[in-house]
Every structure is written in C-alpha cells, then in structure tokens.
C-alpha cells in the first residue's frame, strides 16, 4: 500500500514536560490551556470542550489549503470526548437530569459533525475507534476510501486525551493530549510518501498514536516503524518532498 501524506499538523500537551522529552513532538501553544479557534463564532465556541477544540484546531489547519475544495474526512479517536461522557455518567449515577448540550456533544462523531457544520463541508465523513490501533486504522480507512475513483484526497483527523481521574486505572501512564490531522492521497507532488505492508513483528505499545505522530514529525526518508498488535503494519517513509 503506497500513499502520500501532506498538510500534517498536530497539537500536543502533556501534564508533565518530561513525558515529551526525547521525542520529536513539541508542545504547542503552551501558553494557553486549549488551542485558540478564532474562526469559530463565539456563540458556537462556548460549547466546545478542550477535546473538541484540539480536534477542530488541527482539522482546520490541515484543511486550510483546500478551502475551495471540501475534503471527505476520516475522524479517529480511541475514547472520544470521554470527559464529557463521564460527567454525564456521574450525573446519571447521582440521579440528576443530564445536560442536553453534553448529551448531544458526547457521541463519538460529534466533533466531526461540528466540523461539517462550521466549515459547511458536506463531504462524506466517518468516525472510527479501534482501541490502541485507532490512528493506524484511520490511515488504512483513508486508503480504502481513495480506491473510489471520485476521491483523490481524504482528510484524517485524530484526537485523544488522558482519561478522567476516575478512569485512570484504564489509562496509559504516559498518555498526553494529542490531536493530529493530515491529508492522504495516492499521488501528490509534495508530502511524505509512505509504504504500508503487513508485518510479522508486533508492537504492543498502547501509545501508538504518539509513536506515529513522532515518526511523521521526524520525517526521515528510509525510516520505518511497526505499529499494531492484532494486525501489525510496517510503515516506511520512501521519500519526503517539500513539507
């Protein structure tokens, strides 16, 4: 499987700077808690959680160049906006009536729905969750969509954050706020050319999205990484052109 990745953007924030040392990922926008979304009208922005802001921030950055051309979107998140979901669950457990706003925005595809409304993009969009393999599966999903002759570019958007404290036992020790977006095409003048091939070797790391973002941020031609535990893939960077 060969594909070209371009317009790669990410937003990352760690609880502790040490979690990001020795990685290619830099903490972005460290001065503010959430990324700034000036392009979203204030009345809409007020309802956005930190999670939604991270996702919309990278999506808009990567899609910006294609303003005239609306791209189909593959949205990927292992947990979705789980901070919102967990507060709803808490209200239910305490016998409280749940917030209609939170309920509407807690579904897995809510962020990409908001993206569609805010950018007036009516292209097909789907939302996937595949455990630790979520970002890898999003890449494969995008590749599958490119098989349609009418589709030549797909925007991939990924976002996850550490689980709320009550669920910390299910989380990885070094999980961080991480959102990334990129455009995938079969052929493009500029970008990172990748080859994906099934791998015998497995990768049991639960922080695969972070690994993949690090790998893409480093963008060294010739480098390769193995991702995935149940179905593992080797990703090799063949060439890097103007990005």
């Amino acid at each position: 499987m060969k594909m070209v990745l371009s317009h790669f953007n990410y937003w990352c924030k760690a609880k502790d700077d040490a979690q990001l040392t020795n990685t290619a990922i830099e903490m972005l926008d460290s001065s503010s808690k959430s990324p700034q979304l000036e392009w979203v009208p204030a009345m809409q922005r007020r309802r956005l959680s930190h999670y939604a802001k991270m996702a919309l921030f990278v999506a808009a950055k990567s899609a910006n160049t294609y303003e005239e051309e609306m791209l189909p979107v593959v949205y990927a998140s292992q947990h979705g906006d789980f901070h919102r979901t967990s507060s709803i669950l808490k209200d239910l457990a305490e016998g409280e009536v749940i917030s209609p706003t939170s309920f509407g925005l807690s579904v897995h595809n809510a962020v990409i729905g908001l993206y569609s409304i805010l950018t007036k993009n009516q292209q097909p969009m789907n939302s996937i969750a595949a455990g630790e393999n979520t970002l890898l599966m999003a890449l494969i999903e995008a590749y599958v969509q490119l098989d349609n002759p009418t589709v030549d570019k797909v925007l991939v958007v990924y976002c996850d954050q550490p689980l709320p404290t009550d669920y910390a036992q299910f989380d990885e020790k070094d999980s961080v706020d991480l959102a990334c977006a990129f455009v995938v095409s079969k052929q493009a003048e500029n970008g990172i050319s990748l080859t994906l091939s099934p791998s015998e070797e497995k990768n049991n790391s639960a922080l695969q999205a972070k690994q993949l973002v690090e790998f893409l941020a480093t963008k060294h031609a010739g480098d390769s990484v193995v991702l995935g535990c149940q179905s593992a893939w080797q990703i090799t960077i063949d060439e890097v052109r103007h990005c």
Partner: protein
Amino acid sequence: MSDLKTKIKKLIIESLDLEDITIDDIEDSEPLFIDGLGLDSIDALELGLAIKKEFDIKIDANSEETKQHFASVDALAAFIEQNA
C-alpha cells in the same frame, strides 16, 4: 433590578457558558432567543433544565405557553413567581 431577575440572569450565563456576557449585558425585556441574546433550541432545553433544578418548577416542553414564558427575563421572572 429585582433579586429574582439577577438570579435568572446568573443562571442563564452559567448554565449556557456565556463566558463573555455579564449580568448587565442582559436586558430584562430583551428577547432571549434568536434576536436579542441569540440563544438557540439547545439553549432552551438547557435553560429549562437549569430552571427546573434551581426553582423546582415543572416545565411543559410542548406547550405554546412555555414559549411565551421563555421570551425574556421579565417573562421568566413572572412565570417563576406564579409557580414558585
């Protein structure tokens, strides 16, 4: 300004995350929805819930009258006073 109206305005700002709006920005008689403050249908549900919680008032979501009660802070205050 009556205490009840101040309380309602505070409830509107807090329950609807109107971060940049203060109590003084909301006029008693100004429409809350579409024009005026510019709230939408999700806000109506959220505000209904907040009023139900705060004042222990049952609100009929389908009644035409409910629309009138939610027209402005003045209308809400009158509705709450009647039903409290």
